[in-house]
């Protein structure tokens, strides 16, 4: 086996197989278990980083898995997959280090071994999803991370909100997953292969019939919409905030929501033949970006603000893919991974110190928590999109690409979303760190296990754009079938500072200054009571209410008519299974196998 492929396999197997041994190591001592889990995390991060040397085109290696069916496990080490794996591995390792202190309080009531092995499985699953080039294997890893998100969101299972939130995340993403599975099967049938590169070749040669291609295109959009929390399936992500903050940072930055954007990016060349596909994707993204940003503006829970902000930023990435700016979207995915992990871990430090998630009970924390304060500013500046911080470059690249491609309708929505992003970022900053102290608790800086990851991520948020040239050149080198272009650092500066997009950035800066001057004094009063304009975003545009009252109630009343069938007696259920088996058997004989 080639070295690169071997490293890739190890990067998946070490966290996935090593994770459950946490239970054994716990028998030695809980401390040893924690050290073991963090070590595994850092080994994985190191392995993913070392994959940088092996970036190359197509499949690095492939093994035949099921000989008769021609299902092989391919490992692709191109720039698209390796960077997603690196984000998962590195952010995951930092989150694990952070967990050592942040989760310590949970040890009395909940099993920390369960926490650590699930986090490791989560990281390994995401790396596997990124590095696999076989669609079926991708689907398997897709389900693994789905399970991990469900289990980790419900980690505090005695909390009455946690279990429904986990279930909701599972069910809502499941709707998308079914679409993804249908898409995979349609492509398998249409192209005769499961390898994504062979499918791309078949699609560009026009060998896939348009029915299968349409089915697969719709299915992949559904999968990405579910997993990446896009409109209209975004409702699970805010509720997932009952999870421990480290899990939120993993879900939002490293592991889960990136999967959908990555899938769209990976499968983008397959669906070039469908003329409706990019339009649908770009509008879904743009609507989500504005929707998420406006809701984020009205929230009081610091984690919910960040959750809606993630939804909005994912909207940018999806819109970029729809506009054909594949590279900009993947670049934003990486930069968002870094700064959103940073923001979540900062929020975790704040919650750890103040003991509340409600921003109304914070305020004036800047004096007590200097490191967290600086790191949050870095994260927020990156989120707002000020160039110099990496988020600025990636977001401007998306907007610039959309100006070039002439997709003006979605562009307007994205620019509006950029202003709202600035507003909620500033509001979050002011409510937590500045203004009058509204808490009795005396806050201190968090312990080093918590601020060290913050510093690393803050460095990343500030300086990651240095690698732009190498990143784009590796993309061009390893992705011949995709529409990517090399951008040197100089061109990046040119793209960002002398294109029309710079006016948006300048206007956003002016807007923040105006907000800082005008809104400072009465910020606590805004959004307390809904008025005519703010009612819709404060109620999250009634999505949950609609789903609960219309769809769920309809489904329940329909299936409720079958309640009598459910006797609770196992023998009856078995009889039903046997009867179903016989019916299927008879049908097979009647139709001829």
């Amino acid at each position, binding site marked *: 086996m080639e070295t690169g492929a071997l490293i890739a396999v190890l990067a998946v197997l070490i966290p996935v197989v090593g994770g459950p041994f946490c239970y054994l190591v716990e028998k030695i001592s809980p401390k040893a278990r924690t050290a073991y889990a963090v070590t595994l995390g850092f080994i994985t991060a190191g392995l993913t980083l070392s994959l940088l040397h092996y970036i190359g085109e197509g499949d690095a290696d492939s093994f035949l898995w099921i000989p*008769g069916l021609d299902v092989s496990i391919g490992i692709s080490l191109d720039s698209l997959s390796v960077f997603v794996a690196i984000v998962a591995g590195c952010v995951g390792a930092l989150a694990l280090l952070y967990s050592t202190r942040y989760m310590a309080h949970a040890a009395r009531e909940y099993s920390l071994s369960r926490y650590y092995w699930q986090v490791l499985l989560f990281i390994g699953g995401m790396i596997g999803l990124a590095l696999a080039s076989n669609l079926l294997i991708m689907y398997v890893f897709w389900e693994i991370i789905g399970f991990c998100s469900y289990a980790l969101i419900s980690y505090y299972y005695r909390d009455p909100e946690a279990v429904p939130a986990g279930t909701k995340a599972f069910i809502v993403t499941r709707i998308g997953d079914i679409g993804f599975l249908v898409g995979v099967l349609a492509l398998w049938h249409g192209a005769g292969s499961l390898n994504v590169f062979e499918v791309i070749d078949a699609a560009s040669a026009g060998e896939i019939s348009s029915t299968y291609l349409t089915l697969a295109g719709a299915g992949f959009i559904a999968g990405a919409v579910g997993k990446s929390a896009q409109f209209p399936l975004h409702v699970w992500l805010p509720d997932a905030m009952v999870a421990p903050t480290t899990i939120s940072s993993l879900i939002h930055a490293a592991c889960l929501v990136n999967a959908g954007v990555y899938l769209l990016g990976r499968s983008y060349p397959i669906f070039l033949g469908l003329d409706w596909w990019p339009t649908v994707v770009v509008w879904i993204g743009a609507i989500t970006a504005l929707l998420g940003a406006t809701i984020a503006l009205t929230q009081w829970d610091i984690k919910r603000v960040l959750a809606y902000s993630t939804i909005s930023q994912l909207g940018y990435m999806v819109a970029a893919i729809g506009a054909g700016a594949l590279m900009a979207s993947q670049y934003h995915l990486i930069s968002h991974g870094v700064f959103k992990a940073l923001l979540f871990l900062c929020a975790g430090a704040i919650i750890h110190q103040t003991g509340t998630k409600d921003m109304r009970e914070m305020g004036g924390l800047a004096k007590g928590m200097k490191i967290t304060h600086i790191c949050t500013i870095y994260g927020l500046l990156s989120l707002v999109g000020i160039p110099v911080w990496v988020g600025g470059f990636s977001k401007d690249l998306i907007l610039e690409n959309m100006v070039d491609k002439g997709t003006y309708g979605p562009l307007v929505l994205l620019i509006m979303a950029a202003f709202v992003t600035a507003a909620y970022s500033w509001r979050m900053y002011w409510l937590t760190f500045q203004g009058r102290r509204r808490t009795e608790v005396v806050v201190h800086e968090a312990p080093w296990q918590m601020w060290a990851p913050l510093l690393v991520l803050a460095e990343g948020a500030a300086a990651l754009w240095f690698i732009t040239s190498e990143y784009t050149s590796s993309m061009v080198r390893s992705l011949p079938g995709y529409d990517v272009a090399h951008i040197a650092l100089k061109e990046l500066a040119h793209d960002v500072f002398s294109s029309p997009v710079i006016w948006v950035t300048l206007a956003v800066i002016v807007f923040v200054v105006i907000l800082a001057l005008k809104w400072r004094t009465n910020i606590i009063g805004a959004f307390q009571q809904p008025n005519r304009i703010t009612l819709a975003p404060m109620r999250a545009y009634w999505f949950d209410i609609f789903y609960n009252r219309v769809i769920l109630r309809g489904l329940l009343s329909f299936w409720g008519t079958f309640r009598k069938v*459910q006797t609770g007696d196992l023998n009856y259920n078995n009889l039903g299974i046997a009867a179903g088996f016989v019916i299927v058997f008879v049908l097979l004989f009647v139709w001829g196998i």
Partner: protein
Amino acid sequence: MDLWQFFMAAVFILIGIGIYCLIARRNIIQLIIGLEVIAKGVTLSFILGGYVLNNEQIAQAIVITVILIEVITAAVAMSLIVVARRNTGSLDIKDLKRLWG
């Protein structure tokens, strides 16, 4: 009559016994045994399919997977039975009947 037809009959007999066991028995451990008998029948049917279609490789791959899944099912079921026994003090499924509609 060919050899494979005997095996086909064996498959049907095994699955039939298993299903009868699942429907008629009330002891959970007996239910698990019924489940295992069905799984044996299914395994045999895969071998048979490989033999008839002259595709032993894939049959072998699937049979190994099925055996693995069987073991996992049995292990998980046994652990659940232990918990159920501890909580209810009984192995009769009528005593575990809480999920009626």
